[in-house]
């Protein structure tokens, strides 16, 4: 049977340990909500209506040089609370941090029709210029010149200098030992304010729509690469 689960199927083994990653979305210090108004670093007020991104290729970094990795593809969606809890299985061991990609690796961008989290029907795939949208936000702001004051940032592109794929490393405060049949619970905060400020600040008035690969998309990806913070990591019974 094929599964529609967002978690890729893997062989069940007795000697695995799991890592559960719990994501919390914020804007600065405030909890994210589509009901609230926020103000970005350019002083522009806006509301959000969409926030989705891919987290893939999870690895645990150990004291040994070998990383424990697993084929894992998740689509996180602010509107789907369940999508903010990710479960990944790893080999037991002692680890110092978590590594993953924000976006979809280039192999999956060039391998034709995919299923599960990578199914093109999730609205995260460009049909006219093949490739996944790594992350997107949409919303409204009085400063946007677009119809209905709409703004949209669909960030993607996996080639060359405008590659938007980001490797995220979250270091644990201290090395953690993950035993079999145990679960490592990790709390991660994603701060959407980072989309707007970084090496090049983003102004909604100046650029209300970015929906193709290129320099502009790359700039936003350079900004949001910094959005994740590890809040807590501890081992629990599963």
């Amino acid at each position, binding site marked *: *049977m*094929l599964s529609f689960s967002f978690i890729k199927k893997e062989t069940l083994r007795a000697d695995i340990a799991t890592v559960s990653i719990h994501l919390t979305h914020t804007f600065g210090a405030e909890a994210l909500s589509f009901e609230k108004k926020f103000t970005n670093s350019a002083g522009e007020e806006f509301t959000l209506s969409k926030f989705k991104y891919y987290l893939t290729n999870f690895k645990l970094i150990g004291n040994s040089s070998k990383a424990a990795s697993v084929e894992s593809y998740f689509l996180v969606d602010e509107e789907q609370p369940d999508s903010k809890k990710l479960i990944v299985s790893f080999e037991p061991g002692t680890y110092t941090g978590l590594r993953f990609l924000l976006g979809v690796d280039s192999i999956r*961008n*060039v*391998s*034709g*029709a*995919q*299923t599960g989290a990578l*199914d*093109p*029907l999730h609205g995260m*795939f460009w*049909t*006219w*210029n*093949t490739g996944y949208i790594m992350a997107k936000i949409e919303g409204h702001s009085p400063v946007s010149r677009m119809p209905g004051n709409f703004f949209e940032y669909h960030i993607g592109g996996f080639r060359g200098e*405008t590659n938007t794929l980001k490797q995220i490393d979250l270091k644990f405060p201290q090395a953690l030992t993950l035993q079999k049949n145990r679960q490592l619970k990790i709390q991660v905060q994603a701060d959407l304010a980072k989309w707007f400020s970084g090496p090049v600040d983003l102004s909604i008035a100046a650029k209300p729509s970015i929906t193709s*690969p*290129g*320099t502009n998309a790359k700039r936003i990806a350079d900004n949001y690469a910094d959005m994740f913070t590890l809040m807590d990591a501890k081992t629990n019974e599963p």
Partner: protein
Amino acid sequence: MKKTKSTISFILLVTIAFGLMADSCKKKDASAYNPTLETLSVPEGFPAIAYDFNQNPLTKEGFELGRKLFYDGRLSRDGNFPCASCHQQFAAFSSFDHSFSHGFDDGFTTRNAPGLFNLAWQKEFHLDGGINHLDVQQLAPLTAPNEMAETIENIIRKLKADPDYPGMFKSAFGNDEINSQRLLRALSQFMVSVVSSQSKYDLYKKGEASFTPYEERGYTLFKAKCASCHTEPLFTDLSYRNIGLPGIPNLLDAGRMRITNDPADSMKFKVPSLRNVVLSQPYMHDGRFASIEACLQHYTSGVVNGPTVDPLVRNRIALNRSEIVDIVAFLRTLTDTVMTKNPRFADPESKPIFSPDPEQHD
């Protein structure tokens, strides 16, 4: 003792029962999924196939499913626009006599529909090469608001509700699940199977046909003046080039640059195959020329030079009127009616128009 014995018999019974169940499941599966594997043969002189059949093994069942889907209007939002509405078999699967093709809500496409054949030898799709795999190309026309304008979710819903499709998906893929990957892969199986390699030119190359003096002279001229881009045997080198077409009002199409963002690619489009070229009029990415002669005249006297115009056409191509006649005669040998009339590629629901019907003569 008795109790132990009955326990053992019970365990035995359960084991046997489970064994039987497992066995019958296996048998049922085996009888249900037994697709007929097919091999796409490489015509003599053709390069190796680019399409990856390891991911999507070609089967009779997959091909037939793809064929039905290709001709099914329900893949479009209002039911009027199957793939075949813009890709007509008699026009070598291009849009006959249309510079742009009709789409949903009186929409028009913004580029001339290319003929669909020999796709198994291509790695990039669309005139700007923006699509890197045939399986995902289909998402573009299926969802574009000016083409079929449908969502993948709706297509899957319509196919699931159909009396025939679930069974066809089961025969092609092992169970009746219908998802986007299977839909796209089935369509690919049909499309890669359309091969054009049986024109008069192909017979000539095999020594099974001879050219007229016009065709012979045209072939010699073609090899000297056209073949560096329209390379045999596909009659395209699959590169992107700007051939110096002057801009036309209300259509700003940057071509390949739209994909690469590289100004060096401005106004470049994929070199089209010239196989079946007489069937696919009008010509160029925007269908601006109604005849092959007009295309050739562009190369002799119409090229407008700009920074990205191809060095091979910058100085124009010298051809006199009789040479144009000869080249056109040669291009006519590239028509493959074996493909355009092959009932295997036709609408599975249509009846052959010209098939002999003894009853009618009574």
